[in-house]
């Protein structure tokens, strides 16, 4: 393992989060089994008290997870300097078999923990505490995924060998590579773009119709199509290079770290969209539309500006 300070820091913090996650898990199990709102027994009072501790821990984990995730990406990016062949985080992610699943798991967990917080907030508003058991049961499931992420992260860092030569994003994401990704990237760009903008407009349609399940579904597809179009189309306009298809390079300083902002918008927009499946909230719609629009406009600016400046497409 490369024993760089960044990796050690990530591992130390992961250890702390794990320690507290386990405490919360233990408490969540107890609460799920024994919580009885109507009981006046002392044990119930204790459980109630402990539910605050569990909730606080989960909130803390989520609050730390976000900057830690950004730091994780940042570390991967920095590691690319030490690994031969890697020019950006893409190469580092690809350096082991664990990189891509880890990244996806991390993103999934962000969604899950954020969702827990929404659940918790709704539960806290109502005196009947309707979601107490659900939310802690949900955490118990999320806990396993969280531990999976921690273990996978450790394994991945352990497996990275600086002496191995990896491909850079130019190879990983190119149309000629054999990876499954290239299948999607090879699809007709016009089709993909039409899909992208159509999904975006559908969101507004379903907002007007107040059909929240359709809205959620559209958001789900939007995540997938956005990522594909980002890599195969919009990204190339950020780099101004038709062959540069990479979802990580624009996180770097050279591109003013725009990647972080775009991804943030996408995450927030789709996250709020997904929460609508759980509960109808006017603000859920609005926030989702706002961030998704911010994302769509953000990515669309690049090709638009390019065409404006140069009169041609890439």
């Amino acid at each position, binding site marked *: 393992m490369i024993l760089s*300070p960044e990796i050690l820091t990530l591992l130390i913090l992961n250890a702390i989060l794990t320690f507290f996650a386990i405490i919360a898990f233990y408490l969540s199990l107890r609460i799920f089994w024994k919580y009885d709102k109507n009981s006046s027994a002392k044990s119930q009072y204790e459980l109630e008290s402990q539910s605050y501790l569990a909730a606080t821990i989960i909130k803390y984990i989520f609050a730390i997870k976000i900057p830690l995730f950004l730091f994780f990406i940042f570390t991967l990016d920095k590691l690319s300097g030490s690994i031969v062949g890697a020019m950006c985080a893409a190469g580092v992610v690809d350096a082991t078999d664990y990189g891509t699943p880890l990244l996806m798991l991390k993103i999934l967990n962000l969604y899950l923990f954020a969702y827990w917080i929404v659940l918790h907030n709704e539960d806290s508003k109502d005196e009947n505490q309707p979601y107490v058991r659900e939310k802690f049961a949900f955490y118990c499931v999320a806990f396993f995924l969280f531990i999976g992420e921690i273990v996978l992260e450790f394994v991945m860092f352990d497996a990275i060998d600086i002496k191995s030569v990896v491909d850079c994003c130019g190879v990983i994401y190119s149309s000629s590579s054999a990876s499954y990704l290239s299948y999607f990237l090879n699809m007709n760009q016009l089709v993909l773009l039409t899909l992208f903008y159509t999904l975006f407009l559908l969101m507004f349609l379903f907002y007007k119709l107040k059909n929240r399940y359709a809205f959620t579904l559209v958001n789900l597809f939007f995540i997938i199509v956005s990522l594909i179009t980002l890599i195969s189309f919009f990204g190339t306009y950020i780099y101004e290079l038709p062959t540069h298809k990479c979802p990580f390079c624009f996180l770097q300083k050279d591109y003013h770290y725009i990647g972080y902002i775009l991804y943030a918008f996408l995450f927030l927009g789709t996250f709020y969209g997904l929460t609508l499946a759980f509960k109808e909230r006017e603000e859920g719609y609005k926030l989702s539309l706002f961030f998704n629009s911010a994302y769509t406009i953000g990515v669309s600016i690049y090709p638009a500006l390019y065409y404006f400046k140069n009169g041609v497409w890439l």
Partner: protein
Amino acid sequence: MKSKINFYLIEFAINSLLRQKAKSIFITVVITFLTFLLASVFFITNSIKYELNATLDSLPQITLQDVRGGRIHDIDIKNVEKILAINGVSDASSRVWGYYYFEMLDVYFTVVGIEEFETALTPALASLSEKFDFNSIAMFVGAGVKKKMSERYYKEYFNFIKPDGSMKKVNIAGVFESDLELEANDMIVMSKQNVREIFAMSEERATDISVHVSNPKEIATVAQKIKEQFPSFKVITKDDLKLSYENMFNYKSGVFLALFVVAIFTFFIIIYDKLSGVSSEEKREVGILKAVGWRVEDVLKEKFYEAGIISVFSYLLGIALALAFVYLLQAPLLREIFIGYSDLKVSFRLPFVMDLQTLLLVFFLTIPIYIAATIIPSWRVASLETDEVIR
């Protein structure tokens, strides 16, 4: 879901911290100290790395050495011609240099030979060779060397002891400065002929061969070609050097960090313990807050604001102190641990290097950990039964 910042709560939190002076000061001192230590270590290593990289940058892109039995052996000068014939090589020249052991002070000087009309020189050496009188038996020395020699009263000249036991007197023509302190400090420059004499090296041999490549991106390729042509020689590229130094640094920092894990763990325990000792005063206050309608969540939030404020404040203080310690005071004591790569105690100034990464690293190693340590104690306090406290 987005609520505006509760300034009254912030104000109350600050006030609360001030009302518990002893505890607050203790915590501030502990966090500041930890931050200070961490930041200082990182600042020092960053500065050294920066200096090192800059030094390495001035090295030849490829160095060729004849290694026998694991030791560097003199290399035949005729190989220079052969190297020049390789495609992609823009320049190659023989280098004559070595480490001279000055027994009286138990130090090593780096003795470097230069030639008139030599092309592949560092900028510092190049400017030096312009004013150099290659006919004289004289040398230019670095500031550190001058100092060391003066200690033994060699002010105008120095007596080198040759391998056969006889002495060679060389006049000190002057002291040279270089932008790169690491480079200049322990170096002595004289004509190649004189160096050969001191180290008893024949005219047909050299210490190693430095190679320059016309296209920097092709360094690895050319190095490969050389390896194929001279399988017995050791070929070192600049990138190899950089990488090995980088990893050595990471290792050293890594070891330090491993020690820090212990320190952090201790830190966590101390904080936890300190916060768990809730004074009756504090208990009463929480009781009052809950009696007037604060929920457990509100009390917890307030405690977190306290934790956040004190940790951020201490963090900033620690960073400021570390900056002053490392760059103003030049990190006495601590730097000795890191500057061990050369046997001459290099007295150079740590250059100011500041990057976001270091600040982030120190941030992640202190603040989240402190806040984590406050979770359980804060919860305990917030959950106290109001009724019993008020009576």
